[in-house]
Structure formats: C-alpha cells, structure tokens
C-alpha cells in the first residue's frame, strides 16, 4: 500500500518534471531554420494523428490521439506565446501603441489559457451510461417534477406538462407540479389592472392544464429570488426524494426517469444528474442564417463535448433544467441557492463543497425551445455570463471550503470562459486601429509570423477541429462570439462594478415574429463594420502609398476582411425573419398508415412531428389514382401505437408520381389524443439522439471557412439591402 502510494507520487512528480522540461523547451530561442523544421514536423505529426483519429474509432486509440494532439498543440502554442511575449510586443512605438499592443497580447494570452482549460477538460471525457432501475417498484424513490414558469405563453408549458405526466414511472411515485411565478398574488394584484387581469387569466389557463393532465399547480405570494425562490417555495409543498426540474419549454421523453434515477440509487453521495438541453427550434443564428437543418446546435459543444469532460473531473454541474436533484441535499443546503442569477451552478458548487457529487448523462431527453430572437439570445447569454462571474466574485471557488483542487480550477474556468467577449472586442478593434491610426500592435516580420504564428494557428485549427469539429463547424464559434461580444462584455462590466446588481431575466421563448425587422441591438456592429471597412479602405490606400509597409498592411487587411465577413454574418443574424409557425416540429422516423375518408389506406413514413401535427411522406402507386384535397379529414395509424389519430390535411406537395409529402394538423377528440401526439413528437430519446446525430456531419476547415464567408455575403448584404429598401428602424426590443 505504502509502496503503491510512493509509486503514484513518484509518477506524478516525474510527470510534473516532464511538464516543466517541455515548457522550458518551448521557451528556448532557436534559429528560424530550427523553428521551422520542428514546427513543420510537429504539424505534420498533428495532421497524421488527426487523420488517423477519423478512421480508427477504437476508444483506447482515441485516447492516445487525444493526448498527442493536446501536447503537440500546447508545445507549438507555448512557443508562439513566448515569442509574442519576448519579441513582438510593440514597446517602442509610444504609449498608445504599447497599451493597445498589450491589450491584444492579453486577448491572445486569454485564448491560450482558455485553450489549456479546454484541453484539460477534454483530456479524458467520461461517457457515462445509465443504470437500470430495480424491478421492485417499492425500492423506487418518489419523484417531484417541477416545471417553473414565469411569463411564457401557456401553450409552451402545456406539452411539457403532458409529457411529464406520462413518463415511464410508477404513477404513485411521480408528482408533477407547475410552479407558476406569473400567477403569484403579487402579479395577480398588480397595480396595473391590465397586467393583473392578464396574470389572472394566464394562471387560470395553467390551473386548467394542471387539472386536465393530473399535475399540481403551485404559486406563492411574492416573486422573491426569481427561479430559485420559486423552487424553494414549492419545496414546502412537496416531499419527493428526487426533484426533476424542467423549464416550461423542456418536454421530457418518456424514459427520462428510467435512464437517470438508477444513478442515484447506486451512489448515495450523488446530488445531481444533468442531461443535455436538446432543442427542437433554431436559435437566432440558425434561424436567420438558415443553418438549422444541417448545422449542429450551438449548445451541443457544451453538452456533447464539454460536459462529459467535466464529468470525468467530477465537476459537471446543474444547468437549471433537464436535471434531477436529490431532495435531501437541497434540504441540507437550505434550498436552491439564490445569491447569484445562475442558481443552478451555484447550488452545485454548494453541494460539492459538502462532499456531494454530480453526474452527467449524455443522452438527449428533453425537447426545448431556443430563444427566437437575437435580443432573447443576448438576454440568456448575458445572464449566464453574469451569473458565472457572480459566482466567482461572491462565492470564490478558491475560498469555498471542501472543494477539490480540480473543482476550484474548473469553477474558475466557468467564469474565465466568459472573457471571450472582451477578447473578441479587442480582436475586432485591432485591425482598424492599425490600418486607420497606424498603431503598431505587434512588432513582427513575415518570417516571424511564418515561423511562430503560422504553426500555432494551424495547430489550433486542427485541434479545435479534432475536439469540436463534430458539433461545431469551423469558424462558427467566431460568429457566435462576435454576436455575443459587446453585450456580454457590458454585462460583465456591470458585475465587476456591482457584483450583486444583475437581476434574473427570463429568457423569452415562444415568441412569434410577424414581420422581418432589424434588431435594435445591432448598432454597435454597424460601428464595428464601419470602422473595420474604413480600415480596409485606409489599408488599400496605405498599401498603394506606403510600399515599405506592404507586407504588414496586407496581413492586417486580410485579418480585417475576415472580420468584415464575420460582422456581416452577425448583421445577418440581427435581421430577424418572420416566423409564423407556432409549435416546433422535430424530425421523426416512424411507419404510418394514412386512411382517407373513403377508407383508402396509404402507407408511408412520418418525417416530422409536433405537438399539433405531423409531416408524412407517402409512397406507392396508389398515389396515382387517389385525389387529395387540402382540408380533407384522415386517420393516422401508427403500427406500434394502440389508437389512431384524427387529422386534417393542410399541405400537399408531390415529389413525383409515387411520392407525396403531406402536412397534417391533428384533430384531437380527447386528452389521450393529445398525449399520443406529444409522445409521437417528443417521447423517444432514441429519436432525439438520431436527430442530433443527423446534424453531426462536420465540415472541413476550408469548407467551414467558405460557409462563414458565404453566410456573411448573403445574409449580411441582405441586412444592408433591407436597411436601404425598407428605410425603417424596425421593431425595438429591450434587454
């Protein structure tokens, strides 16, 4: 035992020694020749490993590939950053240049640290499996399902309540509650009579939904402490062993509890099991740039890659919804924490400090809605960023007792991550500052850039592609960073100035957009675009008139052109497109038979489904002799389901003689019909998994680059055209 401990420590000590040696080697100044040879060879090795990783799927091999890619990239990046720190800082060009140059360097240093955190998290992701439940229902814990809601339309909550009440679990041990913070006494007695009436009407509808589907309805006196206060209030009315928290738009699959509850039975110290937030509607970028069908969802990078990595280090955390919490721990903590506006991560931190653990099960089991508009997206991201920074400031993980070192480190990273916004602002400002004001930001020659910056950049692209290529197209992250940069930065500044000032703002969901309009939050990006475009014009002028600095001007102009494409892409996101469809429709694969009023039965496949309808693809020669009409009533028979569903044809599209696409709106005759519709659309976690995997088709670096450039051109210019043609400011939103 003692020998084993000594061996373990020796091994770790040797590892540390090797790390120090490699760091020192990465700082050795060598000739360009040597630097180029070493860099080229390592890049070649990196490319080889990357390509091998795409053909060899063995997990053990993948682990070796993963570490090789990490260490080669770190080595090349360290060499670059050392060169940046020691050779390229513009300390000789005046105070302004020095300050701007240092800011740029800080932005790059931020990128390095962020990359190191990313590598650390992803060094060995943990692919957790669910555990089976005991056969004896008596051994199963009692589950309380909380569906907090505030101001969302009841139609958003309705499918969630239906799905929650039909999850596979003994009925006597499953209690579903709508926690209505929009129907509090405070809201219903608002001094504004119209608001009060609206709150009362909404509460009445929710009560009806609860009563109709066998759920409970809970509300409270006052709206204190936002979501955490809402949940804590409900705790006094319920007494389940486990709490399943579902945002009101997060429709659970039938097997949610079957997949997750077993983990609690196996580990009494487990506090939370988090599952991915799976979305069946596009975010504003996907919607306005029309990438939703092909591109992986933005949040998948976090839920599909980062959370498994965090889980391997025991630091996956509660994300506010689609997670089960142990009630006894909540009681021990005195309720869900509410010091910050990210009560979820904060509560996890508190539980961890008491020795409880977290788990992440990477299986999509909810179907949720993304914020429809850019403004809603910003509200959501600013809240996350502010909350994480609040946690770092108000509950500094380095001062909270009981945490492990790695937990402290990674909770630091959760706050540190949001620095990307400020770094991106600096990166956007850097090229025009150089081109317009001739402020030197980096003192480098072409050979310096080729020797140090080139290998680092290529290694970073390759490693990013390796780790995230499946769930994020190349350069899409930059686009997401750009659209968040300004407002997240402002939000973080607010937290730094007054850490307790931010209040919880609910992400608006289920919004309808009746017309195209430009988001009122666009103006900073006009400034960026104008400044960068001016930079390009000045760059052309300087290129033609300052032949002595052509290389540097050309390099920065290339950078500026890239930024312009990203900014145009961002403008494309901010041109909100009209959206009329009310309920989200998810891809679906299930055999179906459609019976017409005259008794004719046609077979086909259900290709997509929503809470209110389905899309069928009918095939067969019979299609040639049948006459379809919009508005016709039909009945749908699903082979594995016990009863038919009535529907009305609302759309027809013939592909060829033997293939017909039919759009149907369900005609519910009873509650069971609606339950069945929800189950078809959102009940299968296997279906959700398939849907996600369908979008996990990565793009090459070159293709990704081309996509971003084309999106910028097409949608950015469309934005500008819209401005010119409409000559109207558009609808305004307030954060």
């Amino acid at each position, binding site marked *: 035992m003692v020998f084993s401990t000594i061996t373990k420590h020796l091994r770790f000590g040797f590892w540390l020694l090797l790390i120090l040696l490699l760091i020192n080697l990465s700082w050795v100044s060598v000739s360009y020749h040597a630097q180029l040879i070493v860099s080229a060879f390592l890049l070649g090795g990196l490319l080889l490993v990357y390509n091998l990783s795409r053909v060899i799927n063995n997990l053990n091999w993948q682990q070796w590939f993963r570490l090789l890619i990490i*260490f080669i990239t770190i080595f090349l990046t360290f060499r670059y950053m050392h060169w940046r720190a020691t050779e390229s800082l513009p300390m000789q060009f005046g105070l302004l240049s020095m300050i701007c140059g240092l800011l740029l360097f800080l932005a790059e240093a931020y990128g390095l640290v962020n990359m190191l955190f990313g590598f650390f998290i992803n060094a060995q992701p943990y692919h957790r499996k669910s555990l089976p439940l005991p056969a004896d229902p008596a051994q199963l814990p009692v589950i309380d399902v909380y569906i907090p809601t505030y101001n969302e339309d009841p139609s958003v909550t309705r499918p969630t309540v239906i799905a929650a009440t039909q999850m596979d679990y003994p009925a006597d041990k499953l209690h579903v509650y709508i926690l209505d913070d929009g129907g509090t006494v405070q809201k219903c007695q608002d001094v504004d009579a119209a608001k009060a009436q609206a709150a009362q009407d909404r509460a009445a509808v929710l009560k009806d939904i609860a009563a109709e589907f066998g759920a409970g309805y809970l509300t409270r006196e006052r709206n204190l402490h936002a979501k955490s206060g809402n949940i804590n209030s409900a705790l006094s009315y319920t007494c389940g062993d486990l709490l399943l928290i579902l945002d009101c738009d997060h429709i659970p699959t039938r097997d949610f509890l079957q997949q997750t509850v077993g983990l609690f039975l196996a580990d009494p110290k487990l506090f939370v099991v988090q599952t991915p937030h799976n979305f069946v509607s596009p975010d504003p970028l996907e919607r306005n740039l029309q990438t939703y069908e092909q591109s992986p969802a933005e949040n998948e990078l976090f839920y599909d890659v980062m959370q498994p990595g965090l889980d391997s280090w025991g630091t996956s955390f509660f994300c506010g919804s689609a997670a089960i919490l142990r009630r006894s721990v909540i009681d021990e903590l005195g309720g869900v924490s509410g010091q910050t506006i990210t009560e979820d991560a904060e509560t996890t931190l508190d539980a961890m400090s008491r020795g409880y653990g977290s788990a992440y099960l990477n299986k999509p089991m909810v179907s949720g809605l993304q914020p429809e508009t850019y403004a809603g997206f910003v509200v959501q991201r600013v809240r996350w960023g502010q909350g994480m920074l609040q946690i770092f400031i108000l509950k500094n993980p380095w001062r909270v007792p009981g945490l492990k070192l790695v937990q402290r480190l990674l909770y630091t990273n959760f706050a540190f991550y949001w620095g990307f916004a400020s770094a991106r602002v600096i990166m956007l400002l850097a090229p025009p500052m150089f081109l317009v004001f001739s402020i*030197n930001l980096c003192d480098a020659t072409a050979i310096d850039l080729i020797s140090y910056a080139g290998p680092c950049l290529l290694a970073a692209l390759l490693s990013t592609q390796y780790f995230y290529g499946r769930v994020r197209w190349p350069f899409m992250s930059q686009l997401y960073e750009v659209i968040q940069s300004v407002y997240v930065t402002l939000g973080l500044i607010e937290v730094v100035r007054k850490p307790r000032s931010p209040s919880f703002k609910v992400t608006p969901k289920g919004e309808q957009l009746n017309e195209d309009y430009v988001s009122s939050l666009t103006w900073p990006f006009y400034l960026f675009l104008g400044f960068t475009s001016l930079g390009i014009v000045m760059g052309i002028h300087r290129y033609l008139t300052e032949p*002595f600095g052509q290389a540097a001007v050309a390099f920065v102009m290339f950078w500026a052109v890239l930024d312009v494409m990203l900014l145009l892409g961002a403008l494309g996101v901010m041109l909100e497109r009209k959206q009329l469809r009310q309920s989200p429709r998810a891809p679906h694969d299930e055999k179906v038979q459609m019976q017409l009023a005259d008794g004719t039965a046609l077979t086909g496949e259900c290709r997509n489904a929503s809470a209110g309808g389905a899309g069928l693809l009918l095939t067969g020669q019979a299609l040639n002799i049948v006459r379809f009409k919009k508005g016709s009533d039909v009945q749908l028979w699903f082979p594995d389901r016990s009863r038919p569903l009535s529907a009305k044809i609302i759309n027809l599209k013939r592909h060829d003689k033997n293939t017909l696409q039919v759009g149907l709106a369900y005609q519910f005759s009873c509650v069971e019909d609606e339950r069945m519709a929800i189950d078809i659309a959102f009940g299968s976690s296997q279906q959700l998994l398939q849907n996600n995997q369908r979008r996990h088709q990565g793009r090459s670096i070159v293709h990704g680059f081309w996509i971003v450039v084309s999106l910028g051109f097409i949608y950015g210019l469309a934005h500008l055209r819209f401005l010119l043609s409409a000559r109207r400011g558009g609808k305004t939103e307030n954060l």
Partner: protein
Amino acid sequence: MAVFDLQAGRLLQGLLVMMFLTLMPPAMAEDDKPVIAESRFSSQQATVILPLSQLTGQSGVKRLTGIEQTMSWGLPVPALWQPENVTFNINGMLSEALIQGSQLQVMLAGKVIAQQALDGRQSRLKMSVEIPATALKSGFNAMQLRVVQHYAEICEYPMAPQLWTEIDLQDSYFEIEARPRQVIGRLSQLSRLFDKASWQAHRQITVFSALTENTDHLAALGFVAQGIGQRYDYIPTSIQHQPLPDNRQSLSWPMSDSQRIAILVGRFDELAGQIDVAKYQQAGGPVLALQTLPGLPGRYLLLVMGETDAEVRQAAASFAIPGVPWPNSDWASINSLDIPTETSLEQRFSLPTAAQGAFPLRALGFNNQTVTGMDSPPLNLQVWNNTWQGRMQVRLHLAYASGMASQSALNVMTNGVLNGSIPLSNPQGGVYENYAVTIPAGVMKPGWNTLSFAPVMIPQSHGGECQPFFPGNLAVTIYEDSTIQKFGGDELRRLDLASLNGNGYLFTEQPLGKGIAFHIAETDSSTISAAMTLMGKMSQVYKRPLLNSRFVLGHEVSEDDIFHYWVGRFAALPADLQSNLQLALPDNISIDVPLMQSATVQVLEGAEWFNSVMDALGLRKTPPANVTQVGIQLSGDFDRNGFALSSQDDNGQHHIVFTAEDAKLLQDTLHTVVDYGHWGQLRGGLAFWSPTGSTVYAVSYDDAPFSAYGLRGGLGLWVSQYPWRALFILLGLLGLMVWLSRKLLKRHQQRNQQN
C-alpha cells in the same frame, strides 16, 4: 553617455580643421612645406598660409572620380581680421585620359569664381586663383572644388576608372594677407569678439582677477570660464588667469599678439586702479562692460563687475549664458537673474536608467540629417555604453528619395560590424517609421561605441553602353526622433576618463550641472587657470552652461555632489584623495594593465523571459564581466607630466583628478589636454601626458578585447545547430509525456468513475 559627431555643415568643417591642426605631427612644419605663418598679429598687416588639408581635416590627397564630383569645405575669416589678398593655390595630378571638355571649377558661396580646363596631356594640375577679398565674409565661407571629367566624346561610362583628378591637400593652400579689423566695442558684438572662425587651432583668453579665496569670487571665475567655453562652442580654449595688475597699461603685457580680448573680473573697488568704474558704480548692481585697450585698436577688455562679490558672481553668471541678447551699448547692468530652480528642472532632466534606457537620437545631439549622392559618407554616432553584455536596439525613422535602384540600402553598423541592412529598395521612395535593428550583446563594448548609418545609394541607371547616365535622386534622411534602447546588461559603475570625451552626459548629468563640483586645490593663478580651462571645456562637453555646478576651493563638499573634478598640484590635494589615487608623485605611478576580458554571455534560453522579469524586479543581476589585469608600479620622469585619474570613494562619490607635480606644469598640461587630439585620448582610470607631446598615455580595459566567453547553457544554440536531433529528442519527450499522462488519467478514471 553619448555624443553625436558627424560631418555636416560649415561648423563641423571648422571643427575638423582644428582637430587636424592638433593631430598634425611636428613634422608638418618641415621647411619645404607650407605652414601657418607664425602669428605676428598686432595692429600690422599679417600673412597666413592655410593648407587645404587643415581646412578639410584630411591629409594626403582627395581623389575626385567619375563624370562629376565636388569637394567642399569652409574657409574661416575671423571677425577681427580683414583679408586683403587671398590666393588659392591648387596642386595635384590628373588622369591622362581626360579630354577636352573636362574642367575644374572653384566656387565661393555657390558662385564660380575661377575655372580651368583639365587636359590629360598635362598630368600635373597647377592652378592659382585670386579670391576676391570683398566676397569673403566673416565666419565660414562655403567653398567648393568641382570637377567635370570626360574620357570619350560619346558612349562614356560615367564611373570609368580613368576619370579622376587628385587634389594634393597639403600642397594646395590659401595664402591670406590680412590686417586687423576694428569691431565696434558694443556688448551686442560679443559673439564677434569670441569668434569661432579663426586661423588658429587653439584659443587663449586671459582673465584678470584678484587672488582671493572668497566663495562668490571663485564661483564668478567658474561662470566666466563657462561663458568663454560656451562662446567658442567646440574650439579648444585655454584660459590664463592673471592677478590684477597695478595699472591699466599693464593689462596688455600678458596677452600674446594673437589675443584680441581679455576679461577683467572683480568688485568696483578692486578694479578702480585699472579702469574708471564711476559710471558703472553709479548705475549700481552687477555690470558687464566692454572697452578697448588704449592705444591698441582691435583689442578689447570685457569687464565683469559688481559692488560686491555676490554681484560679480551674478554678472559672471549672466555672461555664462550665451543666448543673452546684450544691448547695443558698451555696458549694461543686470538688475536680476532668475536661474531655474533645481526642483523645476528635475523633471525636464528625468533620464532613463542605464540598463533600460531608451532615448531619441536627438538626446545624443543628433539632428535631422540628409545624406545625398553616391559614395556619401556614413553618419557616425558616438554612443557611450555603460553596461556589460547589454544589447541595444536602434529604431530608425527615415525617409528615402524615389529613383534609387533596388540594391540601395542603409547599413547599420556598430564599431565597424554590420548589424542590419535597411532596404531603400522601393523605386518610388518610402518612409520607415520604426525600423528596428538589434545590436547583439558582444558587439557593443563598454565605453565609446561608434554607431554608423552607412547609406549605399545607387541610381537606377548607371549609364554606360551608350545609355544615358542619371546621377539619380539619391537621398536618405534620418530623423532625430529615431530611438535607441538598451536592454539588459550590468551597469558599469566605474567612472572612465573616456566619458569626458564628447557630450556623454546621458546618464551622469543632473539639472544644469547639479551634483558636479570643481575643486581647486589652491588659489594661485596657475591652478585657477587650469581649473578655469577645465571648466570651460566641460561646459563645451555638456553643450550648455553648468549653472548649478560648484567652483570651490579645496574639500568643500555638498551633499548633492556626486561628481568631483579636482584640479591642483599633487601635494596640495587632500590626503584622503591622494591615498585613493594610483599615484605618488613624484616617485611612482601604479597602473592596472588589462590582459584579458571574459564574460558570461547570456544565451537566449527558455528562461530569458523569467530572467528579464527578475532583472526588472532587481532580484537577479547579470554576472559581471571579468577583466584580468596586472598591476605594475613605475618610477620615472613623471614630474614632467600632467595626470588625469578617476576613482570612486567608499561613499560612492566619483572623483576625476587633474594634477601634476607643480602648478605651472598643471596649467600647461591642462592647456594641452583640452585640445581635440589629447582630449579624445583620455580613457581608463589613469592617463598622463607631456605639455609638449601629442600623445596621452593611458590604458583601459577597452584595450584588452574579449578573449574568453563562458557560455551558460547553450541549448538554443545546440537546437539551432542540430534541429533534427532536437526534434527527435522532443518527439521522445512528447511521447513520454503522452504515455505518462495516459497512465495518470487511466488511474484517475479507475478511481473516480466506478460505473
């Protein structure tokens, strides 16, 4: 500490003349060579012969090549002399290939005053040109010799080697007949009386004052010395102190024939025997006045007077400031003189630290300079390096003209070693705002270093092959806001005599001489003469009056003093100072002779950044270089020499001592050492010279080049030399790292992830 020294303009040409005069060995005065006629300047007409070599600062011949070339110089005409007949005799050789159409032009102030065909059939060049005396003005007159040379009627290669004319600089000379010129004795004419344009190499000024130990009086003498030094700018000047004579007639006897002005310093009551002070006394306050010596037209007496010694000091201080616009009258009283307070000057003189100092070339005395034409001389900049091992970076702001060939470049060299070449290759011309050239450790030696900006400018068309030749628009301007920065290195704390050479004040000067004290060992005229000569020289070195410096008797020490200049005979120096010097006159001197220098050169390793931070925090010092030296004690005729020594006492005070066996010898040796040739030879910790010799004997560590380097580390060098081996080892380390990380992660997984 640094000084900029370059060839440009008339003033510098004058400087070179003087330098040459000093450097010229005695053999120059051989009978068959033209020399400066021994001065017989009185009120009578005199003749002077000025060889061209003296005016151009060059010896031997000047070879004018190519299809067209010009040589320039300045012909000085003193304000107190009126040239009457000036003949320019040109001697030399010319190429036998020169054909009709070749010619030599003599130009004065841009106008051709004479020309002669250059005929290759007569290979000797001999030409005598009468220069119209009326066209010559006081000061430096721009003169040029321009040759236009041809060897063929058509298809001529403009740079053909047979196109040459040689001007013999020693055989070509000016013969000037002149008579003294009366200058109106007005204070507004002071600058004409202290005239830089002269036919003499060395100025001598007599200062009369009472012999007294009064502090204010001594300070006044110090200011007077500064005023003299400032007015002569860069020209070596000896100041001869004389006690006040009994009567006015005796004022002229100590003055040599060449002296045109003397200065009288004292209170009204002290000067009453020599001059009529009544009208000045009536005006009250400090007074500056100008008089002619009776019966000696062309000779002047400057009076620095006051009711009290304090007023005399104030009058002298006002004289020390060369920019004062004196009225057009023969006297003026100074009602007030507000010298900037030391506190107000502190910030204006906040200079960078030695190791990390960054400063513009302007701070080194460099002004915007444009170099034009082919074969243009380099711009040289003297940089005082007071650190070991530090590297330096030069960031140049320059502009170059359009029309130059792509091979054109500006080479940056240090001590003759090329450090970087800046392309001037764009045919459309261009501007570099901050072109950085790094001068690595080891190239810069401690002490004075010559930084050269050597333009190589080539026109786009060379002509030849019947192609037209265009001299091109060849020009490059280096701006004074270009910067120099030193990085790292260990500050050299030992004061070297070489730092006296030039305006090497960057790291030593406090506001207007604050912290500098001139100590006079005794108050006899010889010692005062020596001290005033030194004071005048130092104000020239610093290029501004040292109003905050102190000129005191003996060991009077102020807390602010850091640098002490001692002047006195050896026996009169304080005992503690004597014991600190490597000198025991008249018996012996002790000298450390360096044999070898070695240094631990910092190799750029991975830890350089860390080391830099540690350096900045003061937590780490670069290991100093070592000088291996032998100590030797010598006895001999040292009682015939003057000595300069530098030392540092236990309190960190720097002492520079000028001494000799006796006061007269000290005065003579000081008058000698302020000359260009001698002053430039001062270096090391001990130097000595004879008042009549041309050599200063000195030795410093600079004489022993680095001969041993201890390379610390060297991994970077090894990797650079064997990149493939390094790569192999790196891959091994990375593999080991991956393997070990995998083991550790697996273990972590087994321990923490049970299901």
